[in-house]
């Protein structure tokens, strides 16, 4: 829900304001703004396209819409659903390491 590590974790996928990209080898993070967060339709699909561009192999979100789910399955990107929303991005990254 923001562009730094202390930001809260947005439970929405396609309509999340920002995506945090984590390099699992170096532990580096970078933030990308989601241009289609406010789009009237196709936000999930465009978010998947963005992830493909960034070369992500895993996605963590609160939930995935039907279209995003189908695409992510097709492109063999691993989906992770975290249903508790209270943690910040930094906490989630800490638990991955």
């Amino acid at each position: 829900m923001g562009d730094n590590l202390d930001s809260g974790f947005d439970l929405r996928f396609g309509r999340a304001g920002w995506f945090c990209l984590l390099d699992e080898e170096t532990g580096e993070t970078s933030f990308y703004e989601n241009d289609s967060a406010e789009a009237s339709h196709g936000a999930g699909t465009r978010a998947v396209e963005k992830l493909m561009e960034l070369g992500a192999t895993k996605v963590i979100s609160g939930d995935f819409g039907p279209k995003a789910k189908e695409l992510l399955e097709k492109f063999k990107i691993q989906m992770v659903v975290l249903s508790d929303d209270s943690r910040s991005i930094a906490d989630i990254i800490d638990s991955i390491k």
Partner: protein
Amino acid sequence: MPRRKTLRRVVAPPGFRGYKPYGNQYGRKKHVDLLYEEYEAIKLADYDFMTHLEASKLMGVSRATFARVYESARRKIAKALVETREIKSVFGNASLDHSWFECIECHARFNIPDNRTEQKCPICKSDHIQSLKDQ
């Protein structure tokens, strides 16, 4: 601690995130959460015209449990219609008929695509995971 709920098998999640009433004269009200398994129960019983027994076998629960899920689904839909509330589809206690898993340690739910071989939780790296399908 109460007994954990058996996950209800859902073949396909609903193709919508929600339904909204329009032209209603009262302001916004809290939405009704329709669980995936409730949607599935309505679909099997009232759209595919299955008996409760057949439907319960498909969802991997007992007939009585199916009847309860179905009852709850009908009541929620009735509530939404009468009280002009929005319906939202929520994951609930469903297990999707794909390769989905749940981590026993951190309760993250995730899928393992064919190109991955490790059977580990992507979050906490624990190998204490269970398939949502087997339950």
